[in-house]
């Protein structure tokens, strides 16, 4: 009898960890409930039009995060490493787009001598995105060849440090080359970032910018095509196989190195597109522009369950919405939106470390 009773008693004992969980969870819920009550019921700080504005900007920033997040998640799924330099891949793409747009702006076309960017607005956008995507792709692949491939099989800290080093290197190289000042992105004739459709909500206008809609739709298209690549193509199958087990995949005739390179290339494509979108929509870039979106995107990857592609998209959208609605909803300073985003990350990791959609990884997979 005592033998069978003992395990049950052990299982019932509340660990200090659970106490911490309960205290933190209740404290957080009480805080959120109190602030929401203050903002929504007592003070009526914002009208419905403002809430709609917050939600729209959340969806847009979420869609940009989603593109970067995919890069983290894909690389994590395959190499089980945090590609810390991914935010710089994003930054490099933004700069490539910036330079192409600048060049097209000063390039006269035809007899009138009008700039290329005004005569051919749509090809200009395509060229800008192509430049950003190609540059980011090349950067991503080169990064893997130089900084990560020689370290495969080393203890987990080693590639992470190398990634941190590569990130610092790229940031500073960009700052030295392009200067420390902020650069204003060209305001494209076809996609003016100050224009858009106007909705009337509660008697007040809400501007939905063309660039915002464009960013959101393009991001969704890219995400869907990525999902199809991973689920339906030969390369996608190879990627999934490598992420399950490299040795076995190699024995099945998959060229592991080439699959890893292509994964970095795909991550680079998405990050480059995100970089150009960022420039077009937000209008300003600088050498450290990738840092905050990069950390946020990683947070989103963890939030959704790292290594899981639909999870990454969901996590990024959730994070974008939380950080744009959060400061308003809790009646806090907008400077604190990063704090809210990271607090969400900490809470998710305390209560559901595998993320929203993540599977529970077994120890062998580490």
């Amino acid at each position, binding site marked *: 009898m005592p033998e069978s009773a003992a395990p049950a008693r052990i299982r019932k004992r509340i660990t200090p960890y659970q106490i911490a969980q309960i205290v933190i969870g209740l404290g957080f819920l009480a805080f959120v409930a109190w602030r929401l009550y203050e903002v929504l019921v007592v003070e009526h700080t914002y009208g419905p039009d403002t809430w709609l504005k917050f939600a729209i900007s959340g969806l847009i920033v979420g869609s940009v995060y989603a593109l970067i997040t995919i890069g983290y998640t894909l690389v994590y799924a395959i190499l089980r490493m945090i590609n810390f330099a991914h935010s710089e891949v994003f930054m490099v793409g933004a700069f490539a787009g910036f330079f192409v747009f600048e060049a097209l702006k000063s390039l006269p076309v035809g007899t009138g001598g009008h700039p290329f960017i005004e005569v051919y607005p749509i090809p200009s956008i395509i060229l800008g995105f192509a430049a950003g995507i190609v540059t980011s792709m090349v950067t991503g692949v080169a990064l893997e060849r130089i900084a990560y491939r020689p370290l495969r099989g080393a*203890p987990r800290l080693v590639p992470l440090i190398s990634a941190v*080093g590569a990130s610092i290197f790229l940031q500073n190289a960009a700052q030295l080359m392009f200067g420390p000042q902020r650069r204003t992105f060209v305001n494209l004739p076809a996609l003016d970032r100050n224009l858009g459709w106007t909705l009337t909500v509660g008697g007040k206008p809400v501007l939905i910018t063309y660039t915002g809609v464009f960013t959101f739709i393009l991001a969704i298209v890219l995400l869907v095509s990525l999902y199809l690549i991973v689920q339906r193509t030969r390369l996608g199958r190879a990627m999934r196989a490598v992420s399950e087990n490299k040795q076995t995949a190699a024995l099945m005739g998959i060229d592991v190195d080439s699959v890893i390179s292509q994964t970095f290339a795909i991550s680079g494509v998405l990050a480059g597109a995100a970089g150009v979108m960022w420039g077009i929509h937000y209008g300003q870039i600088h050498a450290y522009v990738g840092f905050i979106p990069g950390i946020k995107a990683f947070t989103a990857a963890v939030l959704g369950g790292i290594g899981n592609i639909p999870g990454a998209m969901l996590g990024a959208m959730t994070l974008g919405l939380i950080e744009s609605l959060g400061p308003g909803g809790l009646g806090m300073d907008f400077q604190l939106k*990063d704090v809210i985003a990271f607090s969400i990350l900490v809470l998710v990791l305390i209560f559901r470390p595998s993320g929203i959609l993540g599977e529970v990884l077994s120890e062998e997979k580490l």
Partner: protein
Amino acid sequence: MIASDIRQGLRTGMLLAIVVVFLFLIGATSTLADILAGALKLGRAVSLQTVLALLALWLGSQAAKVSIEEKRPRWINTLLRAAVAGLSAGLVIGLTTLVFLRLHESGINLRTYLYQLSPDSLDLWSLGRSAQGAAVFHFLLPLVGCLLGAVLARGFREAPWRSATGRRVGALRESITRPLATAARTRWGRILLYAALGAVLILLPLRLNNYWNFTLGTVGIYVLMGLGLNIVVGLAGLLDLGYVVFFAVGSYTIGLLTAPTPHHLMWDFWIVLPIAIFLAAIIGVLLGIPVLRLRGDYLAIVTLGFGEIIRVLLKAEALSSFSNGPRGIPSIGQPAFFGLPFNSSADFMYMIIFSVLLVIFLTNRLQNSRVGRAWIAIREDETVARAMGINTLTSKLLAFGIGAAFAGLGGVLFASRSQFTGPDDFNLMVSINVLAVVIVGGMGSIPGVIAGAFVLKGLPEVLRELDAYRILSFGALLVAMMVLRPEGLIPSTRRRLEMQQARAAVSPPATPVSPPGPGGTA
């Protein structure tokens, strides 16, 4: 054979071209030329040519490097490889030169887009020639340099006196180091060594001027924090990217309690010191409780999040009545010793030296204690450690708390020394710097951490001319270290063996027919 020569030559050439164009774009070529011009009393143009020629020579010798599979390549192969390398590099560099100088000549201010391409640096790059002339020169220089480098390298490698010289140098070095090592192992030798070290540490702060005391003090503070993080990362194997939190806790505790603004408390330094250290340790444990269940990468990113949260919170205007917001805390209290002010750079140097010695002593005792061995067991395999009866949560919390306490001490010294602290002192780079100190030095190794702090925080101060490229080369150094010597400068024995094992496991299979990837031979 020829195809592989061309391929290898192209690869080397592209490498040279990328390096040169990159250095040109970040303005490093001008800086290097200036340094050389200053050192050797040469003209700037001559110095620039020397720098470029040296680069080309080095790459040429690389192109001539005998790869393992070919035992004795013929001269024609070596020359072909060098020629291809030189040609390809020359073409890229020459074309780049032509494009940039043409744009410059047509009156476009390149500086608007590429920050380092000032008219001055472009004039230097053109070497007083026209665009075409400079392009031809920059095309020919790598070509000649590569060929010459290859011939020299090949000749040097096959020279009969080379191995004899190498042996002689080795013997000479041995004859100096061997007796010293033996002497250091005897009891009296060790006492003498420690006495000499002690004398140096006592006399050094007096002999140095303020600048060097400050610089070495910073190195010392990084040694303190490095040793603290070494316990967390190196011994317990918990990757903490938010170590700056505890540094900030230490700094802000001393700031808020001893400064006139914002709270007008102005307590004594010596009372606040233990409070700050204790508070940092408590915060370490409190932050540790919810997150230490997480696996490596998650822990890294959560701690990174904590680091960002603390910076944003300290910077927030909303909390400025408590923390003074973005303005920071000025005129922080400094220590006094029985009424005497104790606040010159030299005094702080003594305090830092004392703290470092204390922390070294503590770390040394800790890592060989029961707790220390528990940490190492957790790092190696957490499941097994728990099965052996180690309370992993308590041990990890202890590691976090002790590491945090060291950082708190570092923060106190840092803030009190500069009499100011503000939110911008606590960015992610601090955490990364400390982590780099631990990793570059050698995880889990006390001499390693000290060496790492000197290399990463001391060396850049010596190379002040290259200040603009400090952080850039820091990043490159991290990557290079990880690729070439991941165990660190002075690794602990255990770590070195682990790394060698890991490397043996991933080394490519001997025959090309065996399956790719890490094989089952490990």
